[in-house]
């Protein structure tokens, strides 16, 4: 009986069907991108647009290859990455404690402060950029602070929201064990709020990525934003598109990674009673998170 059952559903077949599904989904996601690439190449090769303003895609990819080889892309990407991560960490280091304090310790204070926080969050730091530069000077410091300012707000608001969504039964259990308020915050509220907080991190990362390129054009030397700007100033049209494509790809990859982590967090914190039978392989039901693509 058992041998028969194994024959009917050999594990290798299951694997290949999973791989097929993945390949198909990849194609579903990518064919539109490929089509745009072909279209781009076509209209430029047939000179339907001015190739001085829009060079062929192949030429731009060639340029990207060259810029990777001579190290320029790597250097500017590393510089931008370091600033983005620095800004994110600064925003997390300040926003999470504030969000926890307001959301968990003093929710009534949050209600009072909320209008002020909303107004502050709508300050466009680009309009205040000269002020930031006055206080912090041109360069890395000001850049990191400006992007951190923008990432700070979603992190605060999502932390407050996440804290308020923690299952009250979990807090009840923690309290019944006479855990102090601080231990409750660390052991129950923070991990319970984490999936929602991570949604805030995703929003913050997108904001950082978009704003960083702009900030780098204004007040720094180096970085991908500076690279785009510098190419534009020197009339290197290929360079503009090359840097822009690198920015797009990096942003997309970053979002993929963050989405994947987020889905894992959400799956783990799912409170739905799945009622899986212990011996089924249901915990393998998500071979990978392609839905995040």
């Amino acid at each position: 009986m058992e041998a028969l059952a194994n024959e009917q559903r050999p594990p290798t077949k299951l694997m290949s069907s999973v791989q097929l599904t993945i390949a198909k989904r990849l194609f579903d996601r990518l064919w539109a991108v490929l089509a745009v690439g072909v279209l781009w190449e076509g209209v430029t090769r047939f000179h339907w647009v001015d190739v001085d303003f829009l060079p062929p895609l192949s030429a731009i990819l060639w340029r990207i290859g060259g810029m990777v080889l001579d190290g320029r892309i790597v250097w500017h990407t590393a510089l931008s990455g370091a600033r983005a991560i620095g800004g994110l960490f600064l925003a997390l280091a300040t926003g999470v404690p504030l969000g926890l304090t307001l959301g968990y310790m003093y929710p009534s204070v949050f209600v009072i402060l909320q209008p002020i926080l909303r107004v502050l969050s709508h300050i466009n730091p680009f309009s205040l950029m000269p002020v930031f530069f006055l206080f912090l000077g041109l360069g890395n410091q000001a850049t990191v602070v400006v992007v951190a300012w923008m990432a700070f707000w979603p992190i605060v608001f999502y932390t407050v929201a996440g804290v308020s969504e923690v299952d009250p039964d979990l807090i009840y259990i923690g309290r019944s064990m006479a855990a102090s308020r601080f231990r409750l915050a660390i052991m129950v509220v923070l991990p319970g709020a984490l999936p929602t907080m991570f949604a805030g991190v995703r929003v913050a990362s997108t904001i950082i990525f978009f704003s960083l390129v702009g900030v780098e054009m204004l007040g720094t030397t180096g970085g991908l934003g500076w690279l785009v700007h510098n190419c534009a100033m020197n009339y290197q049209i290929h360079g503009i598109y090359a840097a822009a494509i690198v920015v797009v790809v990096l942003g997309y990859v970053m979002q993929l990674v963050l989405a994947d982590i987020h889905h894992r967090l959400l799956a783990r914190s799912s409170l739905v009673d799945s009622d899986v039978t212990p011996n089924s392989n249901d915990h393998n039901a998500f071979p990978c998170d392609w839905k995040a693509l």
Partner: protein
Amino acid sequence: MTLGAESALTTVGTEKITLRGVRHRYPLRTSARGLGEFVALDGIDFDIHGGELFAIVGPSGCGKSTLLDILSGLVHPSEGRVCIDGKPVTGPALDRGIVMQGYALFPWRTTRSNIEFGLEVKRVPKAKRRAISDHFIRLVGLDGYEDRFPYELSGGMKQRVAIARALAYDPDILLMDEPFAAVDAQTRENLQDELLRIWENTRKTIIFVTHAIEEAIYLADRIAVLSPNPGVIREIVNVDLPRPRSSAGLRSSDSFGVLRNKVWRLLQTNSVRPPS
């Protein structure tokens, strides 16, 4: 409430928990006349012996959960006194463990890590935590599922984790709030036998809130029947069925039927009785 003669009789001896004149009311916001109040519990007066399995049954809204909240120390009664081992309850403490209907497992923690939660609160060192959680994983029969997350467990298994978590930090008293109400009938009977086995092994004092009459009779030494609006104790029924209680014959026996009928009738008269 008079604390005279009766309390003098009961404070000596093996009383684990004593409730005297416990009354609890919630403020109510009625639409037209402003503030009102709802008396959830009134004149609750009883003792629970050490090592006893004490069930509380009653229709919804009779204050069963409020009573458990008061026993856990998370709610202070509006009036009256609750003592454990002769000392008044002032707040939650690790001498009481709680098991809830909705399991309330920490979804980001594995079976083992959930069970060790109370020990971490208690700051028990890691090696000792592991030894204790090993013991309780075996006690509730979850060997092999130590590293599963709650979403990978069935309802019955989740409740076993919750029971192990409540037992792990070694409280004297286990407070259980309709713990088996969310699982299917078969799992429920298994868990009842499991609970009896664990109780016989550990000799904890267990307070078991349920709305299922048979469950209360099958498990308990005594059953407090509550009636609603306001929540008062209708009667405390002695369950003089022999132990150990094995599932097969007991549930269909005459004495079981008599008790079931008695408790059922007490609950029935509650619902037709006009509010006093």
